[in-house]
């Protein structure tokens, strides 16, 4: 089974801090994604990457950046955390650029910005 591992289950950070959320997948998948999940809003795509060092903006990229230096690792960066970035962050991966196979999700990181 593909495993998508997010390094932290819970994080508490202060406003203005730089925050790194890490995600690793173990099945050589091409594509990786970062979503945030909020009640009543579902999942919203922040950024995705279809290859090493490649990135594309999703629907809500403002206030975030990403890094993909190795195929298996995709990092989400909050340059200066704000309280409205308090959320559940989900990482996902898929084997191909098409969406036929769906995604495999990690367990999520619940980030609280105080």
């Amino acid at each position, binding site marked *: 089974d593909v495993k998508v591992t997010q390094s932290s289950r819970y994080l508490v950070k202060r406003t203005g801090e730089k925050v790194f959320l890490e995600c690793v997948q173990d099945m050589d998948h091409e*594509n990786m994604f970062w979503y945030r999940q909020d009640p*009543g809003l*579902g*999942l919203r795509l922040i950024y995705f990457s279809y290859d090493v060092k490649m990135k594309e903006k999703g629907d809500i990229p403002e206030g975030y950046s990403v890094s993909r230096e190795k195929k298996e690792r995709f990092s989400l960066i909050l340059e200066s955390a704000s309280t409205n970035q308090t959320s559940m962050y*989900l990482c996902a991966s898929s084997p191909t650029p*098409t*969406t036929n196979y*769906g*995604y495999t*999700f990690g367990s999520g990181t619940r980030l609280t910005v105080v």
Partner: protein
Amino acid sequence: AQSVSQHNHHVILSEAASLELGCNYSYGGTVNLFWYVQYPGQHLQLLLKYFSGDPLVKGIKGFEAEFIKSKFSFNLRKPSVQWSDTAEYFCAVGGDYKLSFGAGTTVTVRA
């Protein structure tokens, strides 16, 4: 652009009742359609998917969904729910190399 609309925010049922969750999507091209489930405290799991062929698809745990192209719909059904079906359910449409998700429906099954 692609988008997904789920009709119900919260559904409460008794065990053995039938379940139907509505999902409509908007996308101009060929779509792949998915239902994901998130049990309390767990990660999102794929329930079922459609990308071609028979528009009635069967998934895990007795769930099924029907793709009706003319209505842009992909409704999820289960004839008889159990307490363990309590979860949040998300419909998703795949196109443009990414999945777009609906807002989710919380299903509470009372024993």
